[in-house]
């Protein structure tokens, strides 16, 4: 796709250029999906809308030139996190998937608060002039490599003539920290949701040990459970 072609288009139809069009598309999808997430009661529906929303934001990232982040978003967010969430939904939502409706009062309050928060944020968004100047549409180099280099610690993206006191710092340390952090989180999550071993004696054992087992002991309780269950 040729970027300068896009800028040419922009001039023809001021109201529509590639970037604007796609931006509107993705933004629209993202926002609508986000609202749908809030509105829908069924958790699985929420998951689907969330997928759409996150996918759209991935698109936005692509549009903004952050390809690597967009791909990462797609892979980790949509591929990993949401699958995890859906797993969560499946495992936990045995019965009342739909049942949990929040009381009307909360909804109204939340709405008001949301409006207030939105107003504040949007006002802030437009408060700075430099932000509003339309993007130059400058074709930028793909950021994957510099990003990789930055993570490893060499900042290739800074421009020489910047009057910086110190060169921009590389991200090696945070990168390592995040890796260790992820490891710890995984171990933690695995531990938290670990399979809790419960020894269920085989029927044969039960029979043999039935008489020797004290009536009150847990084994007896569990065995009766099982035995009861198995009748």
């Amino acid at each position, binding site marked *: 796709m040729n970027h300068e072609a896009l800028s040419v288009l922009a001039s023809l139809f001021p109201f529509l250029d590639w970037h604007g069009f796609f931006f509107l598309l993705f933004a629209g999808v993202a926002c609508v999906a986000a609202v749908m997430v809030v509105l829908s009661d069924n958790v699985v*529906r929420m998951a689907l809308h969330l997928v759409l929303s996150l996918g759209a934001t991935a698109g936005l990232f692509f549009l903004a030139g952050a390809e690597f982040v967009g791909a990462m978003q797609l892979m980790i967010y949509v591929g990993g996190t949401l*699958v995890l969430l859906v797993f969560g939904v*499946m495992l936990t939502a045995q019965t009342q998937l739909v049942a949990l409706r929040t009381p009307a009062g909360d909804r109204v309050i939340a709405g008001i608060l949301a409006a207030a928060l939105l107003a504040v944020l949007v006002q802030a968004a437009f408060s700075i002039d430099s932000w509003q100047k339309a993007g130059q549409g400058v*074709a930028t*180099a793909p950021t*994957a*490599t510099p990003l990789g280099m930055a993570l490893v610690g060499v900042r290739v993206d800074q421009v020489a003539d910047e009057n910086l006191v110190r060169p921009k710092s590389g991200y090696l340390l945070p990168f390592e920290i995040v890796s260790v952090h992820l490891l710890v989180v995984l171990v933690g999550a695995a531990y938290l949701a670990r399979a809790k071993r419960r020894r269920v004696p085989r029927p044969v054992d039960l029979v043999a040990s039935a008489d020797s087992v004290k009536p009150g002991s847990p084994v007896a309780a569990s065995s009766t459970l099982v035995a009861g269950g198995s009748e």
Partner: protein
Amino acid sequence: MAEFLIETIGLPVWLSWTAIAGLSAFLILNVIAGGALVFIWAERKIAARIQDRLGPTRTGGRFGWLQSLADGIKLLAKEDLMPDGADALLFRIAPYVSFCASFCAFIALPFAFDVVGQRLNVGVFFVVAVLGLEVFGVILAGYASASKWSLFGAMREAAQVVSYEVPLGMCVVVPVMLAGSMDLVTIGEKQAGWASNWFIFHDPFTFIIFWVYYTCALASVNRAPFDLAEAESELVAGFHTEYSGLRWSFFFMAEYGSMFLVSALAAILFLGGWNGPVPVSKLLGLSDGMAVNAPYALRLLGCVNLFLKAAVGVFVMMWIRWTLPRLRIDQVMTTCLKYCTPIAAAMFVGVMLWQLFLPGGLVPGSFQNAAGVREGWLEQSGSEESVNKDSLSGITPSRRIAEVSR
């Protein structure tokens, strides 16, 4: 193509671009759909051959090649049932999500040099990411069809695909490391020349990585010994038990599509993609070896090469499917966690060390552009700069690296 339309027909820029985009999308779609149909037929034939029987003979011409058409018509004709307890919206969307996910990956898949939907800098990464999405469709299907068995199937499928993404990711990283870039086209280029240039023969570790990649690919596509999702014997048909008719066909298309995708990816990453075993074009002097702007005919040859390799991959999948019994879910998980991931990791380290110590391969110079491989990564950014030569910022940061590192 776009310039051609703009200058010649004078269509408005955006219209032409959309047209081009639509055309290329259509092209890709058909290629895949066609491929899927062929594969369905091929599957029947190969299964028969394996089972010492003929397979479809009467449908269509001599070899029953119209069988898949017949299937298609049957599926179209079939009534699209929906169980009453099902969640209507999700039930309908699920196949399309799954279908899009697997076909979306083809955007970044180069059939020949630069014959690619969108040449993404993060090509491989994008493909793997999109593969991850397919599981969504399966889960939604499993949940939406409101039957215990489909839920079982969906859960197993999700667990399997998600856990196999890990070793898959690791295997994919090796060729990226060798090629120095995630851009599939670059990877393909790197393997131009004699077959010995293919990454698979680059070093013993990558060779093993290829097989691990292939197993993981099998698993992530739900084929053969890992096809627990629709294990007939246990869960009737897994997550698409309740589907019938067109919706079921979409699942089917998605499955064959991703099967083809995975094999094509294997071909590109390891088997040299569109470069044939013999560098015919180079020998004939048609191109300067880098095939940067080789003529279309050459690219067509490239596409054929890729198709053949992918076909071989698919054939092997089918072959495995009709011979090996199905693995149990825990055995599937064990192979993933205890075998694929460790081996992939070990080989990854192996390759890294190999590249560090033996850049030129066992026999120095055996890879004629091996040297290039190291700097390629630097140079590549330079070449990339050539692509967008009109970038305003004079000194691209990448050149800066070159000066710095020398």
